[in-house]
């Protein structure tokens, strides 16, 4: 149904980010024109795909992984449908040579070896507490609630014109020692320096 992408976007250095942004919009237009125009999926599927895709655009501090092939662990709190979709989608896939593990979390503590925390809408009320408790750890928190960024999320899913988009807050990314790719920011629906 969906053809593979045909626009590799070689990204220059920082100074050319404006151009990159324009390029990304063009790529986005091109992508839409090429063949995804009629592509449809459920919200759950698209969010799961994003969660997997984000991994390649985020850099954790060197000491985070013990070995070059240590797995990247996505912890999921709430959002059961998305976690099941994500497990299905990441089975057998690797990112930069690392296998991807999906782990359902039930308690209010995030295990030390979790790298990405996804908090589903049904657990949104626990987001703030979790974010505060894991404050200085290199943890990428992704949410899907109205005030997700405000409560400590770094990336938050939003719906715009029947499409799933995401917004990014830079402050929690920087303070946790993470780095994100400019390409991710270029695709973001909006980027905020501060959470709100």
């Amino acid at each position, binding site marked *: 149904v969906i053809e593979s992408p045909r626009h590799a976007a070689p990204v220059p250095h920082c100074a050319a980010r404006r151009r990159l942004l324009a390029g990304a919009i063009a790529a986005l237009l091109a992508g839409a024109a090429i063949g995804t125009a009629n592509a449809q999926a459920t919200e759950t599927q698209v969010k799961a795909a994003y969660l997997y895709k984000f991994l390649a655009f985020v850099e954790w501090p060197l000491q985070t992984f013990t070995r070059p092939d240590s797995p990247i662990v996505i912890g999921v709190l709430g959002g059961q449908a998305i976690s099941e979709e994500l497990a299905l989608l990441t089975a057998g896939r690797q990112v930069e040579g690392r296998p991807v593990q999906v782990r359902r979390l039930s308690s209010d503590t995030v295990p030390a070896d979790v790298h990405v925390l996804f908090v589903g809408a049904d657990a949104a009320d626990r987001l703030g507490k979790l974010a505060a408790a894991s404050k200085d750890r290199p943890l990428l928190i992704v949410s899907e609630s109205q*005030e997700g960024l405000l409560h400590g999320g770094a990336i938050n899913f939003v719906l715009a014109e029947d499409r799933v988009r995401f917004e990014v807050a830079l402050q929690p990314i920087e303070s946790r020692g993470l780095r994100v790719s400019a390409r991710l920011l270029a695709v973001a629906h*909006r980027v905020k320096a501060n959470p709100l």
Partner: protein
Amino acid sequence: MNRMTPGCWIGARRFHRCGAVPLSVASRGRLGLLISLAAAALPAMAQSLADLSLEELATIQITSVSRRPESLSDAAASIYVITADAIRRSGATSLPQALRLAPNLQVAQVDASQYAISARGFNNAIGNKLLVLIDGRTVYTPFFSGVFWDQQDVMLEDVDRIEVISGPGSTLWGANAVNGVINVITRPARLTQGTRVAADAGTDVHHLAVRAGGAFGDGAHWRLYAKHRHWRHTESQAGASLADGGQHSQAGFRAGWSSGTDLLVLQGDVYDGRSDRRGSAAQPFPAVEWSGANLLARWTRTSADGSNWRVQGYVDRARRDDAFLYRPEIDIADFEFQNGLSGERHKVLWGGGVRHARDRIRPGLIFGFHPERRSMRWANLFVQDAIALTPDLALTVGLKLEHNGFTGLETLPSARLAWKLADRGLLWAALSRAVRAPARLDRDISLPPQPPFIIAGGPDFDSELAHVAEVGWRSQTSPAWTWSATLFHHRWDRLRSGELPPNAQVRNQIEGSTSGFEAWSAWQPVAAWRLSGGFTVLHKRLRLESGSRDPEGPRSLGNDPRLQATVRATFQPAAQHEVELGVRRIGELPDPVVPAYTAVDLRWGWQVRPAIGVALAAFNLLDAGHVEFGAAGRSVQPRHAQLQVRATW
């Protein structure tokens, strides 16, 4: 798997050194609904989605099985969606103000709190061809088929979106959705957690709203809100106070329980408001007072096979005490259900409903209703089938049968054809038959309340009838540039007319047509800059039927501009700042003449802290005041400003 090209890595500090900050202007943000789908759904699709790039994921259109089977962007109708972001950026603090953002609506402020709102013409303060819903509850007043806009309020901060459909929506929504449907949709309780305060202090309007949200446990959420609004009176062109200032207080709640396939929503509101005291010191006249309450329950079930059920019931009580015009009290009970079924090529939606209203309309100085009390009942059944003729061509045919106590059975059919042009958008065409069923105002009204009458009801008044043809074309794929254009033609029969007094009766002796064009577009060339705009052109050809003894003619059916146009520009000069400029040009209203005017609104928003935002909004910035509607002694809409504070924790 697509190889990533991560390029330059950005932590926030380095990011700032880089200079340009690509802060997007939150273009069409809309908050997500989590659809709890069975995980087994389409595993092959899930696998292939993982092979798409980030950019491509952003273009995937999502289908929502819990909503009506057709997604909005596929609908063969003229639809504009006002997003929560757009409302915030505009600085609107009331529902009618927010509706000004829809280019396919005509919004004219009549006085300090009353509005005339319509689509495709026939605009007046008792406009009766538009159906307005707030979270599934019809808010038009059945005794005149129109909306008291000063009586309808929502916590604007919790609105998810407002869907505005211009043109008939009668097959799904029933009689009165002749010229359009306004669907105000608030967020589910689980998306409004925490405390939010919105406070506005202004030269003319003060407003305070507070909401608190929380959870009962797994999958159960609630919110409570309360708000108060206070507005200053306006003045006539001669400078006399119009005693139209007033205040409105409202409180409400919403609770939601979701468990995988089932969703239960319970919500309600109570409100109370009053205008200033009218008349003069020598001859005082009491204030207009209104109050009301409503309670709604809705249950939705979505099955793994894509079928869904929706059952909804509500009760609504409203009272308005206007010693000058009339004093209605109305109790409404409404029940409806619908069932959506998805097959390989067919998507069927069918359902029905009953509605019962019991009212008492005591006379004012000017009007009376005979009989004073009446009970009325409406019932309907509808079915609609969306047939995929080819992967790109969809035909939707539908029929609604609606029964009312005045005219019996009304038939409301429609046929819509949508053709997806790969990368060139969606081309659509529609044919509909719509009716505006008689209201108490048409049948039972008298002027004055006691004989001898000038107007003596309309015992023979029949439904007003419209046959509508529409053709539209709109973009579908690119989030950076969206547009829509619609041509329409409405043929009218049996429109409301009058007679020479005394004992004039309300008749159906105006006919003719209205036709026009509505178009809008939004363009976001770079993240920090967004431009949007739209316009409508309307041409009315209405005439009295031969034999009519109506001295007024079509002029009493609304006062509409030939042309109106709006442009909005949003600019984000720095990370925490956003500026929006809105300009609207409304053409001259012909009868009575209201001169054309241009209004400029400006809002500057500053996110002081993550949880605190401050904005300065100025309305009618460039003119000292203008008239938007009305005849002699009409209200001038002044320049006014507001300091707006939003806090969340």
